[in-house]
């Protein structure tokens, strides 16, 4: 029995019959991803449209460790027939990682333009921020503040209601 076409390849152009896309991470690892899953990334979607030669697409901004997880995420979200509740639970598990890894996911999702992953990970960071004072936020994320005291005072005055 011949292999069946990928689940949702309505966007695939007739001149690119292959269904697996090869990606190369910054540290030289190669990963394969189904076209349907790859289309979740706007960056990859553009690259696929332009080039059908079959060489692995280089992604200099993403390490192998992170790229592996991104491929996993996109593949899961391209799977047909998964109900909303179980997908949400899977997503929650996916981002149940250390702070540094969440930021790596964010950078990768931003570079690859994967809106679902980007929103998911930004939401995780938002949850970390909610309820903290600016000082606490700076400490938590190790941010070097560059407000001068006068600037800070002026800014605080503009929205004093939020600090009462």
């Amino acid at each position, binding site marked *: 029995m011949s292999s069946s076409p990928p689940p949702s390849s309505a966007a695939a152009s007739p001149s690119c019959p292959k269904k697996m896309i090869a990606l190369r991470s910054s540290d030289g690892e190669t990963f394969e991803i189904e076209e349907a899953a790859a289309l979740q990334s706007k960056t990859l979607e553009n690259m696929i449209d332009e080039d059908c030669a079959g060489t692995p697409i280089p992604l200099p901004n993403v390490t192998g460790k992170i790229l592996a997880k991104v491929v996993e995420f996109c593949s899961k979200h391209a799977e047909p027939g998964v109900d909303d509740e179980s997908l949400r639970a899977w997503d929650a598990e996916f981002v149940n990682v250390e702070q540094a890894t969440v930021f790596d996911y964010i950078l990768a999702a931003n570079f690859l333009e994967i809106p679902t992953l980007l929103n998911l990970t930004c939401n995780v960071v938002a949850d970390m921020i909610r309820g903290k004072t600016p000082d606490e936020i700076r400490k938590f994320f190790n941010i070097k503040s560059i407000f001068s005291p006068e600037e800070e005072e002026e800014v605080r005055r*503009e929205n004093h209601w939020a600090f009462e």
Partner: protein
Amino acid sequence: MDDLPVEVIGNILSQLKAARDVVVASMTCQKWREAWKKHLRALSFDSNDLSTHHGFNTTELEIIITQTIFQTRGLRCLTISMEDADEFSAAPVIAWLMYTKETLRELCYNVRTHPNINILEKCGRQKLEVLKLAHNSITGIELSYQKFPQLKSLSLSFVSISAWDLSLLLSICPKIESLALVSPDIAMSELQATMELTSHSLKEIHVEAISLDKFLLEADSLQSLHLRDCNLEVFELIGKGALRVFKMDDVSIIHLDISESMENLEVVDVANFTVVWPKFYQMISKSLKLRTLRLWGVVLDEEVEAMDLETISVYFPRLSHLALSYDLGDDVLTHCLQGSSNLENVVALELGWTIISNRFSAWVAELLERCPRLKKLKIFVGVSEAKTEKELGMLGNFTTSMIPLMRKYMETILHQRKTGETIKCLHW
């Protein structure tokens, strides 16, 4: 964190939504302030978040909202939700809507304005995808220049609108997929209270607290229909076989006319539904794909028969969730249990009654026998306030008779509901 580009910080701040949280976070550093000013996409002013140890009066709120919105640029989602708020004056509201007109994609607004303004006219129309309005009135829909080309989801709660304007409104939303109408104040022009809605793109509709002589819904792509607390003399649904979910809660329909094949129906969930039952049974008899069937609070009499298990197993071979609540007379029990076919695929069962009777445990036991792959069982028991000795005795008998059955099954939850009191749960 320092590596993140400012647009991404904007995304993070947008996920915070509540205005107070966003403003506080924006104070973290220069980059976050820039994200707040130029890359914030969503903002929410919700009375639940805003009121702290001292509440804000209406004027203060108007000032806070105006000052905050005007610090941002490119806002896409705006929520203004005030519980028990007085009216906002029209000028600031118009200012908020005009300021965000070019970029707004989602608007949730539930405060009356004085004088009344036509929100639909003032808000951005080109990009709007989600609109939730409450406690406002909509008048004078103009076909010629008003269109909501991207609107997918519309929710109107406690909104005054004429039946005519409502149907016009749907026609100017060519991509609308979801409509929710809750307790609308519908002005009728004729003697007969009629509502006619037509949409080729509508996929789900939820109508609550409405009383009409006639409701005609023509929706080729309709997948989900949910009516709650409605009194309809005539309800006509014209579809093209896409309907998957049919839900009725406290609904009374005297003449139900569905020109819809019902072949793709997967969920039938009706509770306290007054309808011509034989006709209804006939309607759903072709729904071979039915997975969930809930017939709750069905009042049986000489003309209304309960659906017997044999019929259920034949009509709905793929049924996995079954919920039944009838008043069980002896003849009802015999009628229901006739035949011997099993419900092969049922994994979840919910059974209830409103009047205690000794027959209930027999009913439960028999049903358990007929569902060989059952994994989950829920029993809802109604007990009247004035519990007579007899009732208490029967309840005791019921509980005792349930114990050996319970031991057989992994997960069983018994809900004991006293009218007017909170539900208590007994877990085995």
